[in-house]
């Protein structure tokens, strides 16, 4: 048993629990986008950042991957934390304005408009990669992946055409936090199965 404090509340945790696990177990809510219980944590969206204070120096870590440690002082919604979240959400508003989920979440942080120019008003995808990881880790089909890098990055099946590997189970659509996968689904979902070549059919 480890003991640490989250937002001043003393809590206990087992070795191997992440800060997010621990917080949730004790009813403390931390926002997430790229996190889903069914797959390994990824630490990409940085919305789940929390502030660790050791003496007078502090730093932000992603609670979904950072392990609970004895005596940690964790703050899940300090000003520093919220500023990071607000900026990310504001940028997401301009990046994927079509996503209702993002607008709602941003609203909760008082972000209702964005100072940045909107590239594509139809865009919903935040590139959290949940669909990709679910396809690999939950379904085992490995039908989709990230394509390209950085700002050009997108999600799709090889050569961005419907893939043989997709079994059209829709897991990616179900785990998608923004509804982007639904919009993309027709472009990756495999064609109806024709019977497979095999002896004795």
């Amino acid at each position: 048993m480890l003991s640490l404090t989250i937002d001043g509340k003393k809590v206990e945790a087992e070795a191997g629990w992440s800060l997010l696990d621990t917080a949730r177990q004790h009813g403390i809510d931390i926002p997430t986008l790229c996190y889903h219980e069914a797959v390994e944590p990824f630490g990409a969206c940085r919305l789940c950042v929390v502030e660790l204070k050791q003496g007078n120096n502090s730093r932000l870590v992603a609670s979904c991957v950072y392990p609970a440690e004895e005596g940690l002082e964790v703050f899940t919604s300090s000003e520093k934390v919220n500023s990071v979240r607000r900026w990310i959400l504001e940028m997401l508003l301009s990046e994927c304005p079509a996503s209702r989920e993002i607008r709602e979440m941003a609203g909760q942080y008082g972000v209702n408009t964005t100072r940045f120019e909107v590239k594509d008003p139809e865009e919903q995808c935040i590139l959290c990669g949940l669909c990709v990881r679910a396809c690999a880790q939950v379904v085992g089909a490995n039908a989709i992946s990230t394509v390209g890098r950085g700002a050009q990055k997108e999600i799709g099946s090889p050569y961005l055409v419907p893939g043989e590997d997709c079994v059209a189970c829709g897991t990616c659509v179900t785990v998608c936090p923004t509804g982007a996968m639904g919009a993309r689904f027709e472009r990756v979902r495999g064609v109806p199965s024709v019977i497979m070549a095999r002896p004795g059919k």
Partner: protein
Amino acid sequence: MQVTAKNSADMRLGSLEELEKLRSELLAAEDPDQTKIIVCHGTGCVANDSPSVTKALKAALAAAGEDIKVMPGIKTTGCHGFCSRGPLVIIKPSNIFYQQVKPGDVEEIVQKTILTGETVDRLLYVHPQTGETLKTTEEIPFYSGQERVVLSNIGQIDPTDIEDAFKAGAYAGMAKALTNMEPGQVIEEVTKSGLRGRGGAGFPTGLKWSLAAKHQGGQKYVLCNADEGDPGAFMDRSVMEGDPHAVVEGMIIGGYAIGADTGYVYVRAEYPLAIKHLVKALDDARAHGLLGENILGSGFNFDIRINRGAGAFVCGEETALMRSVEGKVGEPVPRPPYPSDKGLFGKPSVLNNVETWANVSRILDKGADWFASLGTEKSKGTKVFALVGKVNNVGLVEVPMGISLRNIVMEIGGGVPGSDHFKAVQTGGPSGGCLPWEDADLPVDFDSLIAAGSMMGSGGMIVMDERDCMVDVAKYFLGFLEEESCGKCFPCRLGVPRLRETLNRFSKGQGTLEDIDDLYSLAEAIKAGSLCALGGTAPNAVLSTLRYFRGEYEAHILEHRCPAGVCKDLITYSIDPEVCTGCRACSRACPQGAITGEKKKPHTIEESLCIRCGMCMESCKFGAIQVI
């Protein structure tokens, strides 16, 4: 050569003694009063066609044949550092330093210097300020001002000849470590030396090793980060090209210290020569039993593999690099778990960069105290810098930690062309920042650079003058990082382009002072929120330029002008009628047909058509075209 001829059947060295025996034999075999002609074959000089110089030399010597008493040896070496003066030819032992040698000059060199011993003065280096002609390397401030530890052998040895390296003491430190020291002692020694990672962050190397070493047994790895991505930095390349053995030796020592049996060198594919020399070095080392099973009879097994980078700057980040070695997409992963616990293939791993490994072999050879005696309290030893940009002596310099910017740029670097000061010095590559002339006396070491809002980085040092726009520079680095961001974590993927957007507006003369405040706040969020160092340091370029050159920003925003005359949208090209000869070169070059005028009469530029491509300026032989 002849020495090893007899035991060439099996060159494997079974013990420390055998190594030292071979070393002394090789040294003994050297003829002291034989002249040696050293030709630089670093990438810089090669690009300046030094190979043909070598060819010409061989021919000339052959021609001169019988007139020569002792036939000089020709040695092609790695980079001498003084790249802007290449091709370089140095005559040993007298160390006569010839620069910008063309194949045509070779005949004269042979006739004069080799036969009669007199110098060819027109090939000597002339001090840009004093104007005096300097004969030998020792006299040239570019060299005399340096303290060469990592670079000590580079330019002296033939990197493709391991025996030449032996003569220069290669593998002595490694032999000492493997035969007379426990792994623990090795780590102690490195810790004692106070060596800090030369890759950028300056993490204490000894500490890093001990973290990996504490895992008892099991598979472990050491890695060498040779994915030198920082634009304007080429120290690591020169080390690998000029003295690959220093790196190999260092890695063997590291492997022994933490108990790893495999090393990986992750080297940038853009460095073909470096890869070639590394491969050769590894083969030779294996042939001499310095890699493989039971090295020097110590019972320690170790070998090194080479991975070529595939073109992703982010792979300079250690976790990303390891993913890349695993054949995966080079995206960083969150830490903890730290590589020293779960690194390559999930095994404890230690990653250092080329210069660090090279330092390790020196430390084990000369001792921790010697190393600790160099540099400052918190930053021990020396640092190699790639001194580039608006500076007279462009090239590689190695100096003790803590010496001032002024010293490096104005003394060793020979100052800024056409100016008595620099406008800014950019250190630390894209992660670093720009330091102003006011900071010229800043001691260059890890901590003071960070305090000044920049960082040591891998050692790029880009000198800028008044014609360089700080907004443009910041924009450049952000553009670079936007290109190179892996796109995994949101703050970096989304934030960096947004920062650049704002700067774009500035460089168009748009934007407001409020934007600057937003810039600060967003930059802080990116620093704090990003997953890896690439994102975490991305805003430095903006922050540091804002800190020291805010005025220039305001000039763009408020007065809609670019003081340095760089930002396209805020400048106009014009032709000075006094100077213009009406030669038509510019009007022919102009892709827009914006330049008109009769033959032999001054031309004019129709501004509405001009796209500011600069073609006219480049094509004008008389410098008649200026930017306002």
